[in-house]
């Protein structure tokens, strides 16, 4: 099987097998991974979300697009459509349009190289983003057609935070594309570390946490779109984390609205 996988005519292939470098010293004391549950969070307060830069209209040929940068998390989102979809076998007529989300990692986007084609993770994350967006998109407004949301991750730091960033970028891009939404979907993740909630955990912080959860919601309607949770957590702990996530989501919602308003003003000024 491995020889088959390595035989790829469509790409330039290197050696059959290569490994990431091995370093001499063990991780230094400054590494947060060294102690599993550090009491103090480095660089920011437990309830703070990393500062976000969000921009629309990066890709002029797309119906809508956004670029999101959140310290070492960078991703591009493009929305195409509503457009005609290739006919799926066996699919009959539907008076609802389809929404497809596909998230892809650039090979250099993680600390370990992601070889193309051998990644099941992106499929799973695509579904999580799709599940968060679906309650908001008014699919009945584009029957028979489809809206494609493509996300390309250039750099990532924490997968739960990535899903939340992707949801924010995608819902802003959908609005930028003029796709009718019931509201903007935003998301926030949290980790339970040392008896406290740390919002928007990085990869290392999430690994050191007892449990991690993510929540996406539509602050405009006050409804929750999706929730996921992993690890060993009590019900009260989850509740407390969810509350903090909700509060952070309100702020994220303000940010997305501001960005959209500014881009709409710019567009009106031009025409």
């Amino acid at each position, binding site marked *: 099987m491995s020889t088959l996988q390595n035989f790829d005519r469509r790409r*330039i292939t290197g050696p059959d097998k290569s490994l990431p*470098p091995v370093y001499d010293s063990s991780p230094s004391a400054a590494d947060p991974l060294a102690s599993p549950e550090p009491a103090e969070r480095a660089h920011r307060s437990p309830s703070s979300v990393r500062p976000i830069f969000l921009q629309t209209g990066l890709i002029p040929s797309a119906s809508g697009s956004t670029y999101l940068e959140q310290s070492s998390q960078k991703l591009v989102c493009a929305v195409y459509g509503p457009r005609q979809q290739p006919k799926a076998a066996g699919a009959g007529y539907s008076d609802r349009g389809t929404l497809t989300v596909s998230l892809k990692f650039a090979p*250099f986007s993680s600390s370990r190289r992601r070889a193309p084609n051998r990644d099941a993770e992106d499929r799973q994350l695509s579904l999580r983003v799709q599940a968060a967006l679906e309650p908001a998109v008014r699919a009945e407004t584009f029957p028979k057609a489809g809206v494609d949301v493509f996300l390309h991750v250039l750099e990532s730091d924490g997968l739960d935070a990535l899903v939340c960033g992707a949801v924010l970028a995608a819902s802003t891009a959908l609005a930028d594309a003029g796709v009718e939404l019931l509201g903007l979907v935003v998301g926030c993740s949290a980790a339970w570390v040392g008896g406290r909630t740390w919002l928007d955990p990085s990869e290392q912080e999430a690994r050191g946490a007892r449990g991690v959860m993510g929540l996406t919601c539509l602050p405009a309607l006050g409804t929750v779109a999706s929730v996921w949770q992993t690890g060993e957590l009590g019900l009260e702990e989850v509740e407390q984390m969810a509350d903090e996530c909700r509060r952070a989501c309100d702020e994220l919602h303000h940010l997305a609205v501001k960005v959209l308003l500014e881009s709409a003003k710019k567009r009106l000024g031009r025409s």
Partner: protein
Amino acid sequence: MDDPTPSSSSSAKLDPEIYSRLHPRAYLERFLASSYRPSGRTPAASRPAQVHLGSISTADGSALARLGETTVVCGVKAELAEPDAGGERRGWVVPNLDLPAVCGARFRPGPPGEEAQVCSERLFELLIECKRNEVISLEELCIEPARAAWVLYIDLVCINYDGNAYDASVLAMLAALRNTRLPKARWDEDKKRVVCSRKERVPLRVQNLPIPSTFGIFDGQHLLADPNAFEEPLLDTLITVTLDDRGKVGVQLAGPAGVSGIDGSKVVGQCVQAARARRKELLRALDGT
């Protein structure tokens, strides 16, 4: 005025954007008749180039290059492998361009399409072509002969496609390679593996900068520098002139090279001239950051 298309009697009322979609050839012809292109450029004008270095911390070297709207991000990641039997003292360079579905409406998710494959192949050739003056010396990537060598995975992602992806990719690739710092590595004979220093990093030596300039010929009459995504599908011929540090010239030509009255070989000469000036501009963009 001559009507270039049968439907142009009604074209006066047509929105220019719709007209450009329905009759792209006629649209471009009309612009070129007054020596301009729809983008506002003259036929000989290239788009401004921009390079930003090192924005991706998960890569060992990275760069973002823009040619007008075309944007390519390149990340270099180094891994270790055992050299092949045929080249015991050589490492690898593995360049791959991805034109993902985000970058334009005509790209679909899935394995790399024809254009991306051709482009990756050309990038690979560019890196290994000049045997004595390679961009990266493959021998220098060797850590211990027949035991271990670096593999440089040079992955390029186009995040906005507006034509001439090859020139933009080369720019991003060269900038990312110049930005690459490899951990200091030595072969540990006892452990039979390579040990890298966590603290010390050495810049990768880039010894040659071959820079391409692409031109297109439209309708056998107009030579267009640095074609964009609207012009690209209408061109009969693409000419890429690559100039390296020693002034060596490489020319890739696909299609008939004549331009109304001018001999094909002279057209290539003209392109080489223009490429010399363009190379200086692009080198400035590479150094400017």
